[in-house]
């Protein structure tokens, strides 16, 4: 057995310190929260999306509960909106004064900004086999990316179509699109709260990455 060199102990202490500090900076609730459109408070709604799928998407709703003290409910098995959010917070990087190989190198935490992201999964309200109504909701304490993905499956083939929206510009928010992977057709219509005009654009981000619009990321 060799004795652990002092600098390794120092480095361990510094890393533990940095980790503790980083924990202090913020403790974002990054769980993907699941909500059902029909449970939403109408006052919170940022956008209502009516989707008519050309082929009926899979509909086998399931409800799962997790957690013992704090209950967390998840839904699955039918079309949903994946809405991404981000938060800028303070984090710490580990800086080192001096040569890290030397015995008396001094590690110190240096503050940086960290972007954390979280998602909200909003399940649609089924109007009939092909028609669903979704609402886009804000997540308290998080910034919106003004984008979302309609995630659904037909015959077990999972597909996602991404959209960007804005309440500040005006454009035709009712159109037909074809999904990127399997070419499923869907027609969408967005309405904004209070009947105000707004803008909805399709944008083909990779399915699963709704905040990364291919073209209209800067609709706002």
């Amino acid at each position, binding site marked *: 057995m060799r004795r652990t060199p002092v600098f390794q102990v120092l480095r361990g202490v510094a890393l533990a310190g940095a980790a503790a500090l980083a924990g202090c900076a913020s403790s974002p609730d990054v769980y993907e929260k699941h909500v059902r459109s029909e449970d939403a408070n109408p006052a919170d709604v940022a956008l209502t999306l009516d989707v008519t799928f050309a082929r009926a998407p899979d509909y086998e709703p399931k409800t799962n509960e997790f957690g013992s003290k704090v209950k967390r409910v998840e839904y699955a098995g039918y079309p949903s909106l994946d809405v991404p959010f981000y938060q800028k917070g303070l984090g710490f990087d580990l800086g080192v004064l001096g040569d890290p190989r030397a015995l008396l190198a001094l590690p110190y935490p240096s503050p940086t900004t960290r972007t954390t992201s979280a998602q909200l999964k909003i399940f649609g309200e089924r109007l009939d086999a092909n028609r669903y109504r979704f609402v886009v909701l804000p997540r308290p304490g998080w910034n919106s990316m003004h984008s979302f993905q309609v995630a659904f499956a037909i015959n077990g083939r999972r597909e996602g179509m991404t959209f960007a929206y804005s309440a500040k510009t005006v454009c035709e928010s009712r159109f037909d699109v074809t999904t990127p992977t399997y070419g499923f057709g869907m027609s969408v219509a967005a309405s904004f709260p209070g009947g105000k005009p707004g803008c909805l654009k399709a944008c083909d981000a990779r399915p699963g990455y709704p905040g990364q619009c291919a*073209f209209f990321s800067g609709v706002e």
Partner: protein
Amino acid sequence: MPAAAHAQAAAPAAAPTYLKATEPLGGAFELEGYPASTLRQIKYRGKAYRPLNAYEFIYVKALGPTQEGQPMLLAVSNDFMGVGTILIAVQNDTPLARVLSPTVDMRDPDMGLAQPGRQDLLLFTAGSRALVTSTGQVLWFEHALPKEYQRSIPLLVSVSPDNRHGALLLDNEIRLSKADEGPYASVPFTKAMQIAAFRPASDGSSELARKALAEGKRIDQRRLYANMKAEWINRNFRWQEGKDGWQFVGQGLKAVPLPLQSRQER
């Protein structure tokens, strides 16, 4: 530094190679990239366009047909981007991409196989997709029945003349599938028959791959083999429209209808 300045003074007409250059691609599309690099970025109306989050492309070309006055583009991404061959078309003034081939390979990108006997159809065998080059229509055919676990990997080997039906080669059969509806018939082209029939394709593809390797090129032998299988099938089977829809006949085999999918109206 002085050398560069001198060179610039000597040839003011030539564009400097260290700056990004844009070239028009037709319509509102442009390509941007360093002249010395083969990687290009796509711009639409002066703004970067990153279809399916890929932003660097090794091949971008206008296909020919247009949509909303904008050309349709056939593009192959850089392999780091994780997106293979795609088709870009403008809908409602928004460029939108469709996946043609999931193959991510820069040395030998999947540019499709022209279906023998068809002028305007490219087969992308691995992803069960096809491209009608005259209209830019992308076709995809489902091979599995609802809830069916299918262990063989399908190859799209042929598309019917009406572009609505596809033949998918599975391990023990050829499935006939209708676009938007799914498989409807099965041709009993069994494993034993396939082994005998594809022997020349197997030998030919390994011979070609060996030759290419000797020339210092790397080719995707598996895709070459798949494409040679598709060629063999197109030579030995043909589409026939009967009273019970489009059938794929050849080798004395008769298609068996698959159990009708009850579209579960849930």
